[in-house]
């Protein structure tokens, strides 16, 4: 159905010490929905191949044949450190996609949006947030973004200046900035107070498995229906 396409790295942006945004040019890219991902395939000289999934950060139509992927380098990893730091700009890899029709927000979807991200899990929900910010929708949209410390925030500048009607709340788990009212710690039920109501809000949760499990339990306890919570665990 999909097939592998060649993708040329055109730009690499440092987001955090180990997080990178990679922009690839993919001829004849068919477009994608916020929340979708691609599989990236690397090929060594001896023919050995490795495939990993990466979320698409920018919404469809943002850049024609360009796609933006978020890559978090994991220590000792086989693929992510290579993509994060070693693949030369101008070189090619193969991608398959766009993939996935479940963890997506379509332009037809209406109603308040509650996005909950842990660490680099912000990448696919950022595509949703950007699409919402670019739309004429008046529906509330909140991003709860859990990070260990201020220097681990992706898209920091962009998040400081989001569109009207979009709220971003950072939840620091280890080190909070000076003067912050919320003590450092993982997401709690209190962090869901004042969020868009459970009645018609769609929730998207993405992050490490343990984070998604915990946030999902908090949402259910706060009355959000399981049919309105979609998750993307990345291990």
């Amino acid at each position: 159905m999909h097939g592998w396409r060649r993708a040329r790295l055109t730009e690499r942006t440092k987001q955090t010490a180990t997080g990178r945004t990679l922009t690839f040019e993919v001829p004849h890219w068919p477009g994608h929905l916020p929340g979708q991902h691609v599989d990236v395939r690397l090929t060594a000289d001896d023919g050995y191949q490795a495939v990993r999934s990466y979320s698409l950060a920018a919404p469809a139509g943002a850049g024609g044949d360009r796609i933006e992927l978020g890559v978090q380098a994991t220590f000792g990893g086989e693929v992510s450190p290579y993509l994060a730091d070693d693949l030369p700009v101008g070189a090619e890899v193969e991608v398959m996609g766009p993939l996935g029709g479940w963890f997506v927000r379509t332009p037809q979807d209406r109603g308040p949006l509650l996005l909950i991200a842990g660490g680099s899990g912000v990448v696919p929900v950022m595509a949703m947030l950007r699409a919402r910010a670019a739309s004429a929708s008046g529906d509330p949209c909140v991003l709860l973004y859990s990070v260990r410390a201020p220097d681990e925030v992706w898209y920091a500048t962009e998040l400081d200046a989001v569109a009207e009607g979009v709220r971003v709340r950072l939840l620091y788990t280890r080190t909070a900035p000076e003067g912050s009212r919320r003590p450092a710690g993982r997401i709690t039920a209190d962090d869901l107070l004042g969020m868009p109501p459970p009645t018609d809000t769609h929730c998207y949760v993405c992050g490490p498995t343990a984070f998604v499990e915990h946030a999902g339990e908090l949402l259910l306890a706060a009355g959000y229906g399981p049919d309105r919570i979609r998750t993307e665990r990345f291990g």
Partner: protein
Amino acid sequence: MGDLSPGFHGKSHAFAGRLPPGQYPTESFPVLSAGPTPDIPTGRWSFTLTGEAGESRSWSWDEMMALPQEEPTVDIHCVTRWSKFDTRWRGVPLDVFLDAMETAADFVVAESFDGYTTNLPLEDVTDGKAWLAHSFDGFALSPDHGGPARLVIPHLYFWKSAKWVKGLRLTLDNEPGFWESAGYHDYGDPWREQRYWSD
């Protein structure tokens, strides 16, 4: 292939004579899983040998620990391309269990508490080539590595060394196991690089 992902080598390289083809050495001990880690207290653990006619013989944890023990130090090779040298185990040679039953079987299926299975020729788990191991590197085997007890069959790819093993079933015919029935090689010799069904 040469023009794709330049500078990507994967993780392979040479350790002449000791590293099977296509493997790379690692100091760590990766955990591969096909499901949740089962929790098996040793008080509820038992190991059962089942003959081809259905007769069986079981050992409790304490009975197993009272059997003759060995401490093999062996190299292990995972089909996902990592190899780990000089791993130290403690356990019971499978001969000790198999000697307890007369059999005409040529094959054995290892069965685990989580439903995992793997098939082996009987001759590959006898004569000191395979162990039921309960300790790794001097400590009780941790659940993520197959504790309380797993098989260790170092001359075959490590998926044959079933984690959380609960018994061996002797069979007259070869019965493909969990991975063997989904594309992996029936025998799995790392030196002949028998990774997949067609290798």
